[in-house]
């Protein structure tokens, strides 16, 4: 998932609503659970979950943030993004035996999203992260996107707006067993972007090191590392190397794959081949997946995703202190440094040698 993506003006919204509507059958708001997609060890299920921090089921507002709909996403001069003209959701639902049941599928999907956000918030302390830094985190469901290329297909995506500190959530073009926004791994991937942004920028509302439109080599490396870190967060926090598969067949993002640096285009190679073509777009995911696969190798060696995450997070913090946010190879050095001695360092060095070969010299490896 990119750091930013987009969506069109909803059709058939030209007519203003008539103001005389009244409502019968208002839902009983005393629901203690709501239906949501939930990820279990053997796959997803739709089942009731406790309301928890979700204070208003109709507007999807809670202590973790609010989901808004519509509006237009704006690029600010400082490279951050803001949302303008958005409005509150109005999720219709009924209550059956204390369980809030949505009146349409969109309600089910958006409740599921909030549930995933709550699972992340619950896990943050175990991941060595402070929830107060990240929450509240609002979300924009299907806003108008300012980028023409993305606006042409504003579907099948989610994004984290760096600097603006909100999620952009788009609906699916094709039906899926697990809609993208209801996929816990996809939401964790986007949250991973928030974590990486905070690490490299100093705060959720701080300006990112590179603007979204910056296509320089350093900016493209930074984009690849963003994707790498986001996938590392998603796969390790969920302990799911192929979280995408529940929604889309995407083996290219399975971090158990034999991905190596030789198989991907580096930003330097992209600039050589693309030349001055203004329409050429760099794909940051393949390079990011090589890094995320290295992280997964560490998890395999240790047999513990959270232990692997702790090393990689510490390494990333070391890297931020000692390097620049585009120095991809220095990140590998820092990861090894954080691993210290023993199994973790050996596993990381072996993985780096396999996946990066001669392209990278990691000084901390023997």
């Amino acid at each position, binding site marked *: 998932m990119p750091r930013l993506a987009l969506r069109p003006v909803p*059709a058939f919204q030209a007519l203003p609503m008539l*103001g*005389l509507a009244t409502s*019968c059958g208002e839902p009983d708001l005393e629901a203690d659970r709501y*239906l949501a997609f939930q990820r279990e060890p053997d796959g997803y*299920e739709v089942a009731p979950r406790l309301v928890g921090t979700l204070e208003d089921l109709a507007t999807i507002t809670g202590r973790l943030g609010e989901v808004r709909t519509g509006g237009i996403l704006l690029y600010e001069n400082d490279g951050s993004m803001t949302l303008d003209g958005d409005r509150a959701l109005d999720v219709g639902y009924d209550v059956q035996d204390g369980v809030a049941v949505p009146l*349409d599928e969109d309600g089910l999907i958006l409740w599921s999203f909030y549930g995933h956000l709550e699972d992340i918030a619950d896990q943050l302390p175990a991941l060595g992260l402070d929830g107060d830094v990240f929450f509240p985190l609002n979300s924009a469901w299907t806003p108008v996107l300012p980028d023409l290329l993305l606006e042409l297909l504003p579907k099948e995506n989610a994004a984290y707006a760096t600097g603006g500190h909100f999620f952009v959530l788009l609906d699916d073009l094709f039906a899926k067993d697990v809609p993208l926004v209801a996929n816990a791994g996809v939401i964790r991937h986007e949250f991973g972007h928030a974590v990486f942004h905070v690490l490299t920028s100093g705060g959720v509302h701080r300006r990112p090191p590179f603007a979204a439109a910056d296509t320089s080599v350093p900016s493209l490396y930074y984009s690849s590392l963003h994707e790498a870190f986001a996938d590392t967060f998603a796969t390790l926090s969920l302990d799911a190397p192929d979280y995408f598969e529940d929604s889309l067949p995407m083996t290219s993002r399975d971090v158990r794959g034999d991905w190596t640096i030789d198989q991907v285009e580096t930003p330097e190679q992209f600039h050589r081949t693309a030349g001055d073509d203004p329409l050429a777009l760099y794909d940051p995911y393949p390079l990011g997946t090589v890094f995320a696969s290295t992280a997964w190798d560490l998890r395999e060696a240790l047999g513990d995703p959270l232990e692997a995450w702790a090393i990689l997070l510490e390494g990333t913090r070391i890297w931020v202190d000692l390097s620049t946010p585009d120095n991809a190879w220095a990140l590998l050095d820092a990861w090894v440094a954080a691993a210290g001695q023993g199994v973790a360092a050996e596993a990381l060095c072996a993985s780096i040698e396999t996946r990066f070969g001669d392209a990278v010299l990691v000084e901390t490896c023997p």
Partner: protein
Amino acid sequence: MTRTLACAALLLMSIPGPARAEGAAGLAFGAAAVHVASAEHELRPLVGLWGRLGFGRGGFAEVEASGTRRIEDGGVVQVDERWARGALTVGCRTGPRALEVAVAVGPALTYRDTVVVGEDRWRATALQAGVRYRAGLLLPLGRRWEVDLLFGGASRRRNHDQELVVQGGGRW
């Protein structure tokens, strides 16, 4: 919007036309743009029944019953959304007998019935009142039949649905 429709209806009713007190009834088929939780409008097929009774100079009252259904059948969950709407509208029509323009407005009740089948089976229902509005063209086919092309919509709480239908039926 309400004021605009009312003004348009009064304007059309003020245009002299032949006095007639005829009735008509038939079936309607079309596409509904249904307002869902996300504030999107989802396109769905629509079928309905309608009956119209004329009065005065171009005035008429119309009753309708229509419904839509959407089944999202994924591997994890099935969501079966059914909608039924009943409406009573009062309107007017004007223009040459070969092709009339009609507008109508009135109250509507929308019943929503959604079944979610996942680990268990859950059901949600709601009855929502609102304002119904329609406008379009009435095309007689001979003396006994007609086919109409109508755009319409109905509000529900803070939401509104719209549709485009072709309806046909017999006149008497």
